[in-house]
């Protein structure tokens, strides 16, 4: 009887989770594995970066200073020349991730926003539109 109550409560709660909420969670989970495969080597699993060689992503001004549209292009095309993160200058370059498709990048950015940014989804449609506007 007690179990029945718990189960029915659980069903109630999960059904209360909106479609958007479920999609957000899916993006975050997928995004995490894309991050581990493509980004963590340099930026580290926790986003702390590597000394003065590779910039941190966690606890940085990137999330207020750089728009998701710009991020999409940096991820897809790479980054050359000097950049500043938290006021510190980094000279190296970031390789392009040409293999990542719009959906991968949407999930990746959503995961990073979830970890270090404003915890809002960055949708597939937004990513696709941003990709078209990359130089």
């Amino acid at each position: 009887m007690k179990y029945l109550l718990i189960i029915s409560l659980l069903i109630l709660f999960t059904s209360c989770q909106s479609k958007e909420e479920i999609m957000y969670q899916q993006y975050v989970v997928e995004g995490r594995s894309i991050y581990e495969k493509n980004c963590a080597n340099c930026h580290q699993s926790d986003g702390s970066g590597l000394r003065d060689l590779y910039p941190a992503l966690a606890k940085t001004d990137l999330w207020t200073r750089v728009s998701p549209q710009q991020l999409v292009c940096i991820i897809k095309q790479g980054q050359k020349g000097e950049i500043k993160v938290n006021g510190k200058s980094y000279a190296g370059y970031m390789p392009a991730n040409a293999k990542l498709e719009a959906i991968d990048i949407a999930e990746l950015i959503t995961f990073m926003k979830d970890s270090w940014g404003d915890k809002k989804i960055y949708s597939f449609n937004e990513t696709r539109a941003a990709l078209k506007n990359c130089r």
Partner: protein
Amino acid sequence: MQLKPIALNVLLGFSLLIASCQEKKNLPFLGPKDTRVVAGKIDTIYHQIPAFRFLNQDSVWVSEQDMAGKIYIADFFFTSCPTICPKMKTQLLRIYERYAENDVIRILSHSIDPTYDTPSVLKQYATRLQVKSPRWNMLTGDKAAIYKLGEKSYMVTAQEDKNEAGGFVHSGAFILVDKNRHIRGIYDGTQEAEVNHLIEDIEILLQEK
């Protein structure tokens, strides 16, 4: 509580077992071996890293003579490497920090893209990684000599490959070399657990006379 004789025996057995496990472990000598007869006795000649000479990030020559009496870890990388090198450097940093005060330990990182990785490029890389010679030498020089040393002596792969991200294939191995330039262990430098193992083996080598 009083222990019965059997229980005591079991306890003794266990403590012996544990004690024997803690006995000093010896590291193997890796690579092809040879034998020679000296004064009627058979002597084993172990594989040894031959003479080498490369420039480091401070444009200073580093040779096998600088490694005399040193235990060192060798690896192969290039500064513009987008794949496993950053992971390897993250792991090597652990070793560098751990033995920061130990003058016996050295790290030799050989560039497999020496045309691009000039001493000044290596200097910038080392500075940004906040590491210094002579504890951590980043080496560049004649490409053929580096590749040959890698494949024939350190037994790792290092090749140019246009299809590979960054243009080179190479193994992520760390090679542990003792004070007489014998290879005593090879580890996957991209795996934290493997590098823990390497650190244990460095400790064993440090005890070796």
